[in-house]
């Protein structure tokens, strides 16, 4: 491990905040292939962390481990004080606090936009129908598509679908939002509308972990950038440090290839 404690680069102000996600030595294998090699990182409350790295570097695998879509085989993951174990109740508790937005949106095609958003609040949070629908309409307003409530996902553009997906996650009032390459499947002209929603979310103090290839977003919004390669965290730092003065050779190589 080149970096034993990934939080070394955190400013004093950030360090003083509560821990939201604490990963310690997380290992993950797919068959014989080790996808994560002792990933250790702490994400603070209200922090926006962007995870960068070449494809296959384990970025997505890592954040999918955080809400147990993938099961890690070594190390510990603690979310908001609850450790992820095989205990179903812990998994349910963590999933209800962690929202996730996928590359392929994964909206439910057989439900209207409104039903997509209200399904989980109604059945998981047991919200009454009218309350859930009122919230959903507010959220659609917030992501800028209040007029699409009664349409089906297939009738929306990719950017609109991704914004619905964000609204769907927000409806569960999560404490953390995970974004797994949220703009990678979008046409260029739609990327901005999704990033704008994410920026606004960041400004409102949501804790966010974002896997993305959008360097502009990383530079502008991130509190910290984590650079991963081959299943390891290679370098951690502020955007300024990361883009102007990276210390690791592998980071320099990566930046020279994409900038």
């Amino acid at each position, binding site marked *: 491990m080149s970096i034993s404690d990934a939080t070394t680069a955190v400013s004093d102000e950030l360090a003083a905040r509560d821990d939201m996600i604490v990963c310690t030595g997380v290992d993950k294998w797919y068959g014989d292939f080790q996808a994560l090699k002792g990933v250790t990182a702490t994400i603070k409350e209200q922090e926006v962390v962007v995870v960068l790295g070449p494809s296959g570097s384990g970025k997505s695998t890592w954040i999918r481990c955080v809400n147990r879509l993938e099961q890690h085989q070594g190390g510990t993951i603690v979310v908001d004080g609850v450790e992820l174990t095989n205990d179903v109740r812990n998994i349910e508790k963590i999933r209800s606090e962690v929202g996730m937005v*996928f590359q392929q949106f994964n909206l439910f095609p057989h439900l209207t936009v409104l039903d997509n958003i209200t399904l989980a609040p109604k059945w998981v949070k*047991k919200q009454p129908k009218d309350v859930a629908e009122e919230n959903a309409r507010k959220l659609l307003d917030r992501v800028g598509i209040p007029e699409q409530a009664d349409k089906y996902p297939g009738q929306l553009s990719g950017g609109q679908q991704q914004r619905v997906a964000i609204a769907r996650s927000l409806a569960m009032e999560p404490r953390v939002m995970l974004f797994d390459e949220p703009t990678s499947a979008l046409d260029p002209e739609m990327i901005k509308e999704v990033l704008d929603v994410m920026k606004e979310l960041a400004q409102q103090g949501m804790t966010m972990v974002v896997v993305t290839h959008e360097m502009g977003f990383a530079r502008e919004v991130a509190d910290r950038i984590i650079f991963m390669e081959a299943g390891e965290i290679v370098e951690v730092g502020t955007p300024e440090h990361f883009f102007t003065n990276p210390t690791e050779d592998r980071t320099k190589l990566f930046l020279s290839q994409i900038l």
Partner: protein
Amino acid sequence: MAAVENFVVNTDEGLLPQADALPPELPSLPPGEWMKKNLFSSPFSTILTFVFGAMALAAINVLVDFIFSDERNWTAPATNLRLLMTQAYPADQYIRVWVSVGLVAVLTGLSTGLWNAGDALSMKRISMWFMTGGSFVALVALLAPFDSGRRTTWLILAAVVVGIGLAIWFGLGERRRSIFVRSIYVVFGVLGAIIGSLWVVKYGNYALADGELVADPDALVAPTTRIPWTILLAILVGTYFIGRGLAGKVAALLKAIVMGAWLLAPFIIVWVILRDPDLDWDHVISTDIPMALAFGFGGGLILYALTKPGLGEIGKIVAGVLLAVAAFNWVAAFFGWYPMLQKARLSFLFLAIFALAAANFAGDRRTRLQLVWGWLGFMAVVHYMATMANTASTLEIQGDFFLGGLSLTLFIAVLTLMLSFPLGVLLALGRTSRMPIFRVLSTVYIETIRGVPLITILFFFSVIIPIFLPSGMGLSETAAIVIGYTLFSAAYLAENVRGGLQAVRRGQFEAADALGLTGSQRTGFIVLPQALRVSIPPLVGQAIATYKETSLVSIVGGFDLTRIADKVISAQTDFLGVKMENLLIISFIYWVGAFSMSKYSQKLERRLGVGER
């Protein structure tokens, strides 16, 4: 119910396209060019055109020769239509049959109206149908073994039909493409023409009255046929417009009621309307009603308690205990340890199932009461039906069962489909489950059943199973057949649903998980609705097969449509040995049912496609 509602996508908008939005018509090729392009484009296709054209003509020729041959005895099926429909159902109670058909007509009319079913047909298409239909009549007239007088009559008929088509085509000119008719009106028109002709055209009056053959070829059909059908058509059209009128207003609630009525209709029709239970009111008041109330309100209280928020493990334990009691009741029934009304056993089982679902309704008072109301309504239906089914019928009928002919065919088909659907879905879920015990059991069951011919299973259930049942647990032959057929059909259905389950993308599971849905919520709200939608074509294919293969019942002793056509009519003294005519007629009856199902499934697929990509 949520899962069912998802299948209903309203298509109110865009049914009748605006005339000015039409693209210009592509210039049609002159007939010579068209034939060259479509029939004779290469030497090989020319050969194919001639070979298959000749084969088609030959086939039509054979069929027409057969139908119109002087040797045919069409009096046999005409006289025995009632036998083919309902076998020996008592004539003085026949109003019950008409009421049953009437109930179906009401539901059909209301549904088509409420859901605004049907497409828009352009006058161009209707005109082409007339021309094609008329040409076919002309073809039949030329091929059939008619004398010249009859041939001329048929050719005039053909000319009139083609003439109507041409009149529409040229009379409307360009507007034929922009004037649309609801397809449902076309259906009403065709039905109206057929039923109206009963009052005008002398199809002949045939009947077997007290063993005496009444055959009057120069008469209108009997009033006992034409009057009910006319009333039925009026009901169908009337309820359609009532449904249309109500569509905008209280649509959601009405649609739910109509869907519920469709589910209940087969049971009400068979056990209440047709069977006419001879209710013993003393028993009803002393036992049936108190028991229904006890289960309804006792169960309601338990369920209300179980939906208390934050109950956690205790709720699961109580539900588990209830399930164990319910299961034990059935075991005890099998061994005859203690007597108990079947109704009570069923109620216990349903209470356990509701209790298992109770955790999903934990929340405020209103959510909790939803489950309790659902339970009360469900218990009312179960106890009403169970009481009716358990009461002896007033009908005096020889034999095992009071239905026969088409009514028995439909009874077995509908009941089998309704019972095997939930079973098949459960088996499919079991086979794809992560729990080994379910997976192995489902797989073994499905593979075993699929390896055995249906006829073997039917023999097994109608002959062998009753022998091994403990004394006192009688099983009527029809019940045995339905059970065997259901178990068979469920295995195939499970495989179709499994195909659908595998088509649901991984991302859907992940999204449901990430939102914190439980496994059963994920299956019920996300996975199954999508899987069933994908499975519609194979499921309808199987429904059609199930409907047609009820004819195997005739081999194991059921008096279904096939048995009556094949064995019963040909044994009547007036029609000894007459078989082919009956078989052709029932083929047509089977075909009408199967073709309607196929058409309906195509509509369903298109309609459900609305929300997708």
